[in-house]
């Protein structure tokens, strides 16, 4: 029998960005919150030896231990799903702060179009524009409704940026000015302007200058050391939950973090959840934590896995299209890019920051006419300078041998002479892309792994090549001597890194028959259960998701407070 603890107001499952934000907002109002974090404690002092590409980027020091839990994957329902035994396509965070520790910090707002994508697509192009298999939906919220929460997240994190000329309307400017501009970024800007595009500086959580946020948290400026993604920040300059929202929650005296606490089940009675059961992984003891409100704040996969394992919510059935838990899993189309090789130029590309970059949105969302195109949506096209670290960056012009004398010669020649322009393509939902429990493979506790059924579609293939060609135009204008760009997307391959931007599975919407949570991320079926994160995305846009995840977390915090006061459905 599990040891039962005294009841608390709120229990959070996972303490990353979403858990941290919700903890800060609720504890400020006096609620007693317990955060269960299955990983270990993390702090800035851990990153004393962080400039270690092998340890962090190749051996995944900050990532989830796959020997204990992974996911399984298959391209479609006729294939046997097999476990992701080693990392590749995406990297699952672990420990306090979650993936919010190892991210780059590129912090966008989605476009107004994204939130009403179904209505707007039909309005402009007619019903036939949406393929029968594409389960496109509006989000049950508009950009204007979400705008104040974007603003709140940007101020908490101290986002450095300038207004996107093609983005949604802003109530305020970014709290800090844009990052510094490197010579390659200037080349991109010049080329993009020449092509009549609208470049702007990438919104960055790396901090262009020292900054004190509305919670009184002070952080110092980015030093452009070139070790961001897959690394923690040694300066605390990169906004992450550990240096922003978690200290605010702790300072209130109302927040208790329990690390090494792995939640295995959500507990329920009737149409209410009653708490969670977790294992203290240092002792193996099973513990029950009762709570008035349960908030799921782990990564996409574990949010869905816990709901399914706990028999909470209606599981999605791809055959009938009924049910909602696991529905509309989406990803991104990251391979549409163009690599430019410069024979006689060298750049300081060893330097950089995770969100040092410049981009344009002329081919993102519905910012361009799709009537003659075989796809909807698009992607942001950017040049980033995130630190060209030597193990992982050895590009050579296509056709060069990949090892031996010639490889060495060419890879050294171009070590500081390659600039890539890359698209972050959106990902539309399809009826046969979903998450469910794997029938065969188990985690270290003997619980089933989550299973991904996903592949690229014609929509993605068209989009990838379209965007790659646009990237190549820019690289050409920048004066590259040789350009290699994507010609064909190919199938989704879980072995090569693309992005840790997995979305969907507990999507938001106004209709309970087609969505799992309302626009406060409150479950339609369980008033006292909130499921927060990119799991709420009805599709994935052509931007990094964290800005939208942060905004939704602030929105959810408000919903939880409303529920705490009045009960019932708050959306």
């Amino acid at each position, binding site marked *: 029998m599990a040891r039962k603890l005294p009841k608390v107001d709120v229990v959070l499952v996972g303490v990353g960005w979403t858990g941290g934000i919700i903890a800060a907002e609720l504890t400020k109002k006096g609620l007693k919150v317990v955060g269960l974090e299955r990983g270990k404690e993390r702090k800035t002092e851990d990153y004393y030896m962080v400039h270690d590409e092998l340890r962090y980027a190749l051996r995944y020091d900050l990532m989830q231990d796959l020997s204990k839990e992974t996911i399984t994957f298959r391209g479609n329902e006729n294939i046997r799903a097999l476990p992701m*035994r080693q990392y590749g396509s995406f990297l699952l965070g672990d420990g306090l702060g979650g993936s919010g520790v190892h991210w780059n910090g590129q912090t966008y707002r989605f476009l107004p179009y994204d939130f009403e994508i179904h209505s707007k697509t039909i309005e402009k192009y007619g019903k036939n524009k949406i393929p029968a298999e594409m389960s496109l939906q509006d989000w049950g919220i508009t950009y204007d409704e979400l705008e104040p929460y974007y603003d709140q997240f940007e101020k908490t994190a101290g986002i450095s940026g300038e207004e996107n000329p093609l983005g949604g309307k802003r109530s305020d400017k970014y709290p800090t000015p844009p990052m510094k501009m490197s010579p390659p970024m200037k080349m991109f800007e010049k080329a993009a302007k020449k092509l009549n595009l609208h470049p702007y500086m990438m919104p960055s959580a790396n901090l262009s200058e020292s900054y004190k946020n509305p919670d009184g948290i002070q952080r110092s400026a980015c030093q452009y050391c070139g070790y961001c993604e897959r690394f923690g920040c040694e300066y605390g300059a990169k906004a992450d939950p550990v240096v922003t929202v978690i200290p605010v929650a702790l300072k209130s005296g109302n927040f208790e973090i329990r690390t090494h606490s792995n939640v295995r089940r959500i507990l329920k009675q009737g149409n209410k959840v009653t708490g969670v059961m977790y294992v203290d992984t240092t002792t193996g003891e099973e513990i029950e934590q009762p709570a008035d409100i349960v908030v799921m704040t782990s990564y996409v996969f574990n949010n869905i896995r816990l709901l399914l394992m706990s028999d909470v919510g209606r599981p999605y059935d791809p055959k009938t299209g009924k049910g909602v838990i696991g529905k509309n899993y989406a990803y991104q189309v990251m391979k549409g890019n163009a690599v430019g090789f410069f024979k006689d130029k060298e750049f300081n590309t060893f*330097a950089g920051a995770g969100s040092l970059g410049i981009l344009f949105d002329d081919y993102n969302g519905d910012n361009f006419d799709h009537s003659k195109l075989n796809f909807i949506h698009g992607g942001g096209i950017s040049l980033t300078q995130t630190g060209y670290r030597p193990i992982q960056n050895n590009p050579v012009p296509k056709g060069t041998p990949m090892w031996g004398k010639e490889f060495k010669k060419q890879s050294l020649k171009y070590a500081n002479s390659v600039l890539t322009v890359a698209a972050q393509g959106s990902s539309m939902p399809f009826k046969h892309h979903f998450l469910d429990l794997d029938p065969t493979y188990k985690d270290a506790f003997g619980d089933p792994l989550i299973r991904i059924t996903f592949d690229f579609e014609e929509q993605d293939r068209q989009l990838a090549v379209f965007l790659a060609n646009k990237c190549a135009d820019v690289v050409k204008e920048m004066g590259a001597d040789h350009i290699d760009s994507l010609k064909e997307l190919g199938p989704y391959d879980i072995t090569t890194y693309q992005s840790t931007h997995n979305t969907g599975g507990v999507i938001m919407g106004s209709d309970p028959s087609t969505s799992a949570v309302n626009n406060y991320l409150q479950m339609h079926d369980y008033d006292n259960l909130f499921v927060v994160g990119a799991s709420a995305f009805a599709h994935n846009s052509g931007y990094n998701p964290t800005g939208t995840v942060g905004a939704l977390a602030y929105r959810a915090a408000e919903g939880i407070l409303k529920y705490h006061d009045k009960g019932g459905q708050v959306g």
Partner: protein
Amino acid sequence: MTEEKKEKPDLLSRRKFIRNTGYTVGGLAVGGVLGSILPLGTAKKHKEETAQNFNRALMYFTPEQFRIVEAATERIYPKDEHGPGAKELGVAFFIDHQLAGDWGFNSREYMQAPFFKGEKVQGFQGRLKRRDIFDIALRELNNHSQSVYKKDFVDLKGDEKDSILKDFEEDKVNITTISPSGFFNMLRSSTLEGVYSDPLYGGNKNMDGWKMRNYPGSQMAYASVIEKDFKKIKPQSLQNHMGK
């Protein structure tokens, strides 16, 4: 080693960095790593390296396996007019040391049964650990060399070694227990790791891997160079942060 002494870099230690740049917020040194590092050690002079490198011994390979790995990785990343190859950089020691630890045991990877051959896009599905794969593959490299050239791999001429490696790369060797191309890819990627990882792991000797491509290694900050054109910066390794 005398070479190393001569080019002792002007160390930009963390303490010095803080002092020189006044990296503070509101007059106070910010917390975190910077704050924590201040009390670490007094500014002692950079100790001279001892002549003997105790890292140069084997944790996993037999001497014979070591020689094969040394010979094979040197073909992947050969010595040339730009500088040393894998052998001189210590890549075989690097791989040996890696196989002795987590990486060699696949200890942070999912290794639970059942095992099925999957689609290529589903990734590695084997049951063997990296150290087992190396054991088998190195034996098979010799077997294949014997069957083609009647010699052990290490005794082959350069282009002969290349043709044996190419047969592995292109799966032209018949091995039932491992994937020859899977092994070759692992050998290639671990060669690059050994060339370019921090010297603390046993490869990238003298930071020569970095020097060949003008990579500055571990620097505290590039805030003053990020807006400028390419500039060569003397590399430094993580050892520079040990406050000695």
